[in-house]
């Protein structure tokens, strides 16, 4: 069997490794813009070919699939889905794990996603407004908006989201000004070049609570959920600073328990919150299929938050595996990934079971300084991983290569240079999350930049102290939403507007 993996980051390295572990012994090829050293090793071991090219071009992917004689294409990132790569594979008659253009709308248009969620009255829906232009949005920001998230209405590589808590009236003037200016830069900067959606700016109510991602495999009929994973978006220690693609992620069991043997209350989610989240993702799949008449085949994920308003709440949807979350779910997956893929493509996912072990997995991203806002400074540094120090002493176990190129022009043969984003993801496992975190931490020490430029990572991810806080935060959100649930107020927001009267939203 021959498989083409599309994409060249840490997520695709995790996918390639998981496919390589299949009993079917597939030949794995890869297409990405640069050559990922980790995937390249998998490609070489399995007898495939590494291609450099445009992953967002259906023509390019089609041509590459033909050249390597692929029986199956596994699309890693979201943009190829938005560009119709899976649709093209269907036309070419090649099996594809990837959401077709129509159903990938769930992720691509954050505004359509909310429209759909409200139309079908799916729980966990945040109150929102969408705007086609800056001028449309401004009066709204001036007059009504308090604590809000201002987002580009299209998925724009996870960038451009600003969450502004505007509660303190004495700071309101400053905050409203920044909100306006940010709305303006969404049009001029973040949405520039994206002509495939009508709405440009999305404003949503700000909520708080622990965030988590629930991924599912689906063939459009059957939905097989994966363990919940918590990503860490802040660049620096202690959840401080800039938004990144994800500095590391944790998981244990299906519901983010502290450890394999942890008590029921030592978890970020209860079993029923986890199940509720899966149900929401299922409803989202059903509704997008109903709406478009198209079939969803591949991976779908709800990026969720446990909020006081709703309990499990949708923040955004993914039409693919998250990065670095992919490393969590795939290293816990016990079922053969190739079997799952074949069942998805054959429309018989009901015949397989996706099984996961309940060990803790902690992934930590290692980044060159400059990431995320000065990628120009973060790029181009020679990087290496000291294999001798790895737990097994011989292989790069637990190391996922992400934004790194082993075939860069001008670099010496066999040397790897950073690409400007997260360079390496270190995967630790253990009986509980703090232990897995320590194991990941040990791997981080093996990553080095040869030119002395600094690397950074988040040592706090998965630590005892961090877990204690996350669990406490979940408990606080839980107490409030459960109270609302008992009172029949879940998801309802009631206002008394003096002079106007009683208003109910939700």
């Amino acid at each position, binding site marked *: 069997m021959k498989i083409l993996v599309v994409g060249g980051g840490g997520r695709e390295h995790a996918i390639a490794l998981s496919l390589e572990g299949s009993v079917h012994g597939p030949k794995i090829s890869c297409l990405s813009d640069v050559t990922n050293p980790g995937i390249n090793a998998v490609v070489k071991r399995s007898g495939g070919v590494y291609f450099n090219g445009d992953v967002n071009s259906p023509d390019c992917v089609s041509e590459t699939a033909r050249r390597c004689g692929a029986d199956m294409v596994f699309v890693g990132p979201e943009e190829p889905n938005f560009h119709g790569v899976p649709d093209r594979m269907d036309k070419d008659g090649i099996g594809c794990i990837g959401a077709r253009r129509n159903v990938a709308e769930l992720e691509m248009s954050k505004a359509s996603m909310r429209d759909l969620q409200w139309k079908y009255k799916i729980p966990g829906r945040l109150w929102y407004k969408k705007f086609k232009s800056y001028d449309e949005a401004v009066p709204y920001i001036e007059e009504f908006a308090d604590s809000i998230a201002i987002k580009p209405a299209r998925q724009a590589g996870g960038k451009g989201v600003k969450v502004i808590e505007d509660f303190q009236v004495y700071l309101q003037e400053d905050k409203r000004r920044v909100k306006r200016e940010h709305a303006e830069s969404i049009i001029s900067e973040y949405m520039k070049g994206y002509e495939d959606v009508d709405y440009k700016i999305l404003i949503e109510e700000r909520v708080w609570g622990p965030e988590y991602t629930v991924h599912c495999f689906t063939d459009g009929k059957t939905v097989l959920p994966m363990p919940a994973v918590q990503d860490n978006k802040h660049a620096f220690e202690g959840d401080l*600073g800039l*938004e990144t693609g994800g500095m590391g992620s944790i998981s244990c069991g299906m519901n983010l328990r502290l450890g394999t043997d942890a008590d029921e209350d030592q978890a970020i989610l209860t079993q029923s919150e986890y199940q509720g989240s899966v149900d929401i993702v299922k409803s989202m799949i059903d509704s997008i299929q109903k709406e478009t008449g198209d079939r969803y085949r591949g991976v779908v994920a709800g990026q969720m938050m446990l909020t006081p308003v709703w309990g499990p709440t949708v923040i955004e949807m993914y039409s693919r595996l998250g990065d670095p979350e992919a490393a969590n779910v795939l290293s816990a997956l016990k079922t053969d990934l190739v079997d799952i893929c074949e069942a998805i493509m054959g429309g018989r996912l009901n015949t397989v079971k996706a099984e996961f072990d309940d060990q803790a997995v902690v992934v930590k991203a290692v980044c060159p300084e400059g990431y995320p806002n000065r990628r120009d400074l973060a790029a181009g540094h020679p990087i290496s991983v000291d294999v001798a120090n790895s737990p097994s002493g011989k292989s790069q176990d637990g190391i996922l290569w992400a934004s790194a190129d082993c075939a860069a022009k001008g670099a010496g043969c066999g040397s790897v240079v950073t690409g400007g984003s997260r360079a390496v993801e270190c995967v630790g496992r253990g009986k509980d999350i703090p232990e897995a975190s320590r194991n990941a931490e040990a791997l981080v020490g093996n990553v080095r930049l040869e030119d002395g430029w600094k690397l950074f990572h988040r040592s706090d991810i998965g630590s005892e102290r961090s877990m204690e*806080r996350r669990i406490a935060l979940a408990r606080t959100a839980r107490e409030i939403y459960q109270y609302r649930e008992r009172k029949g107020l879940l998801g309802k927001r009631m206002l008394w507007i003096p002079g106007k009267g009683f208003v109910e939203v939700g």
Partner: protein
Amino acid sequence: MTGILGIYLFDKRWNARNFGVFGLMALQHRGQETAGLELFGEQRAKVAGKGLAEQVLAPNQGTSAGMEKGYVCLGGVSPYPQEEAEIQPIALSNAVSAAIDGKITAVKGYGWSRSATYEDNLRAAFGRSTTGCSIDEVKEFFWRCMGGFSYVAVNDRNEMVAGRGALGVKPLVLGKMGFEGGIVASESCVMDIIGERMPISPAENIDPGESRIFTPMSAHSERCTSCSNRAYCSFEYVYLARPDSFVNDIPVYRVRRNIGRKLAEEGPADADVVIGVPETAIPFAMAYSNETGIPVEKGFELTGRRIRSAMKPNQLERLKGVQLKLNVISEAVKGKRVVLIDDSVVRGNTLANIVYLMKEKGAKEIHVRIGSPHIISHCPFGVEVPPEDELIGKHLPEEKIAEVVGADSFRYLSIDGFLDAVMIKREDLCVGCFGGKYPEEELD
């Protein structure tokens, strides 16, 4: 002591000015005599003067020249300084400004000059040990400083570093503003006022010897390797910090409540009413009342602005403060046996004044209970304690103090009682002012 504040916002569109002003207002209890704020953006601008933060810095008052904008902000509020002391934040060099709480008592590799001022010594030491003004160099300078202090400093590249001295005498916490930036401040109450409201913990404690560096590319934490023993200031819990703050991750209000309970246990009194001296001693009085069942009453009404009378520069100012702040409500004390609770006694004059006023309004008996052990020694780390020959607790026993202030009985909290209440190991606390023994640091 001083309230210090640093704000670093990654997005240069932000103006940190109003955040700075309201942040300093939240620290006002740490110093009410001077206020200063420096903003760093395209330009650098400083406003400082004598008075409250609100008066000196006037929030939302539009723009005074040069104060328009800055995404990095440094500020401080201080109590009465020695005459020649500079208003915080101070300039360490042309390029670097700093706000410092507490006292730096020595700098490794620098001979302190007795004839120069404190600030000139710091500048000389800073000039000696740095060649440029990179933020790493600023950090390393503070790592060479000894004593009991916390600091925030900003250089001319608008980079910020904040941290605590290795002993950890003075507090410092880190708060967040979502993805927008970070705030460091003496106390966590600042985060409630200008930071992001976080349901679990408003702020993260910065450890002794820890520094946080803020640049457009980082907000990393680094630790000074030569970490000595800890010596958290006891007086933060008794008086200095706000009750809605966490100091060293311990809620100050919980300690104050524990102190009230301990006082009830150690100093019971046959009485009709418990009254706390505003503002600090009110939680002590409430806990004393809850523990003993003796009802708590509001004993005083204030005239004018709320001030911290103990921090006033001279006896006249302090008495003025007390008399304006503490007009006795006669209905609360008339014909009653009163347990009167205060946080500390330094010279005893203001206490004598309060007892006198209360008796004048008809209190039958007054049993004074103090929420801290006796103060018998100075503070080398900048808490203003008068010379030892002025300290009543150093020279007179409790019975004698009762007679001097005109009370029917007088009791301090015991040192052991205090240690129980504060929930920190004795070896990690500085109790120098109570016992005359101070933490030691090794000069290598």
